[in-house]
């Protein structure tokens, strides 16, 4: 958890800066609006964390979010009665895509970068093949309430955070980190590496389903709803001090990374650096954060040996 301290300091600093620039942020309504905006990315970051800490990547979540939203809109088509069956179907789709990603990666030994890159092409191709090129249909009010009402979004986010923490404290979490840290050692000590990795991919797929449900309500139906979310989620996780390649990092820090990224966007917007230069600033900050994190690691590791 020590590695995660910098991200919380940075996040606190950003939140203070936002509050200073915009006092509305401190009021319940303002803060709730912020939480609502963060929720989808934070949930995706939690899902991506499981995959990354086990030593893999999931590039398919952006397309998967788009698929979830487009499928929901076409199947519900404004019919309230369809809301709950479709919600259940979305969760199944998410788990299924994760299962396939996991099996292809572990059983066929395709690097997850390629597996999920392929899944990204297949998913976005397939869903628009099905709808004829553009999203069709409409979401029901019952569906949109999850992403639109701040209370729902925050409640779902809270459930995800608690579930993620409990999972990482359970045997699953320990074996997952062990698999990412040293696959061979984990295998020799009896960890079913393939099985925990498949499960991690399923959790990532599930997180994309939940994020899709929230984004469908929050942002509405479009073909671009999930665009580049995979890179944002990976960025958030890495900002939280989780190491690409696996074995190191905490899930709460990964989620804090998502908060930090969103807080950064908010702050840049408040100061009028919107759109264009936002990307440039984001790029510099990501590199800087990871570089600083990398430099700090050896220092932290030395402390216990001195004592």
């Amino acid at each position, binding site marked *: 958890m020590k590695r995660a301290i910098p991200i919380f300091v940075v996040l606190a600093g950003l939140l203070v800066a936002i509050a200073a620039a915009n006092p509305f942020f401190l009021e319940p309504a303002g803060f709730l609006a912020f939480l609502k905006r963060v929720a989808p990315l934070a949930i995706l970051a939690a899902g991506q964390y499981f995959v990354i800490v086990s030593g893999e990547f999931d590039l398919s979540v952006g397309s998967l979010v788009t698929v979830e939203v487009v499928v929901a809109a076409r199947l519900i088509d404004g019919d309230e009665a369809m809301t709950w069956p479709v919600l259940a179907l979305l969760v199944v789709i998410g788990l299924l895509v994760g299962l396939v990603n996991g099996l292809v990666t572990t059983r*066929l030994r395709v690097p997850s970068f*390629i597996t999920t890159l*392929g899944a990204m092409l297949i998913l976005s191709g397939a869903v*628009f*093949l099905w709808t004829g090129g553009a999203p069709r249909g409409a979401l029901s009010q019952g569906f949109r309430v999850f992403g639109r009402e701040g209370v729902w979004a925050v409640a779902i986010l809270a459930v995800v955070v608690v579930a993620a923490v409990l999972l990482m404290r359970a045997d699953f979490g320990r074996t997952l980190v062990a698999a990412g840290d040293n696959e061979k050692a984990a295998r020799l000590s009896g960890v079913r590496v393939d099985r925990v990795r498949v499960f991690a991919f399923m959790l990532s797929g599930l997180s994309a389903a939940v994020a899709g449900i929230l984004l469908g309500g929050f942002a509405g139906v479009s073909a671009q709803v999930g665009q580049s979310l995979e890179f944002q989620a990976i960025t958030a996780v890495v900002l939280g001090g989780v190491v690409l390649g696996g074995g190191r990092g905490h899930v709460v820090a990964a989620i804090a990374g998502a908060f930090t990224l969103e807080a950064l966007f908010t702050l840049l917007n408040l100061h009028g650096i919107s759109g264009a230069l936002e*990307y440039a600033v*984001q790029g510099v900050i*990501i*590199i800087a954060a990871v570089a600083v994190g990398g430099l700090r690691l050896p220092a932290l590791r030395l402390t216990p040996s001195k004592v």
Partner: protein
Amino acid sequence: MTGRVVALVANPTRAVYAALIATLAIGWALVAFDGGTFTLNDLVGIQQRSAALGIVAIGQTLAILAGSLDLSVAYLISLVSLVAAETMAGQSSNILTAVVVALGVSALVGLVNGVVITKLKVHAFIATLGVALVIRGVLDHLYDGPAGRVPVEFQQLGYSRVGPVPVAAILWAAVAVGVWFLLRRTRFGNRVYAVGGDVEVARLSGVRTDRVVIAAHVLCSLCAGVAGLLLASRLGAGAPTVGTDGGYDLESIAAVVLGGTALAGGRGGVAGTVGGVLLLAVLDSVFNQLEVNSFFKDVVRGVVIVVAVAVYARRTGRRAS
């Protein structure tokens, strides 16, 4: 017979060319069945279309062989097309300056990528993604649409032919042969394979690993720069979306991996990448002839990439065990 097939697939480079010939044959048959014909013109078109991706993928091969990867190439291509077209400003006398400036910018971006990865020890994925975002920000800030103008003389690069062969294809072949020579016949090439294979072992054997990775990134960015010049000559101007519209970042990585180069580095080469790019281009061309839905194309492309890598993985797995 089966022994021969196994031997054929045992080498990924041979496998990708076997797949290429098979795809050409099946594609030709399908197109003929559909009532069309697959002519020499289509083959020329394939080379024309794949030249830009081919050049980027050659550079990407270098980065991946060295155990790295480059996600910034797509935005760099857009940036180079704009820098070149604006420097030329429609004057043929500016061509040489523009090419030098454009390649200078590319080399600089490659240098930044390499230094961030080796000296700041940032994972290549994050480093090049960050650099890509920085370039994107600059592009969005400075340009709303196409800018600059390319003189007619420079447009020859994109469109003219020597006999039936497009100049673009010759350029691609030249880059491929150059990098092949570099990888197979020089010490630098050996070092790239050594660093990509095991960076610690390479370091302990006296290779200055940082320099090798930086050089690989500079060369990778230079290739992207050449592709940017080629696209600018074809468009007659620079465009801020030309690189991302082509999806050159992920597509070039896919082509490299399709060509049998291991994503982890140290194994593979230029010949496979050329085959991978041609395979993607032939697929594209056959689908165009059959007027297949473009979304279906994406699905097939995704399946082909994953299946190909799964086949290669089976092979290496058997050898290891």
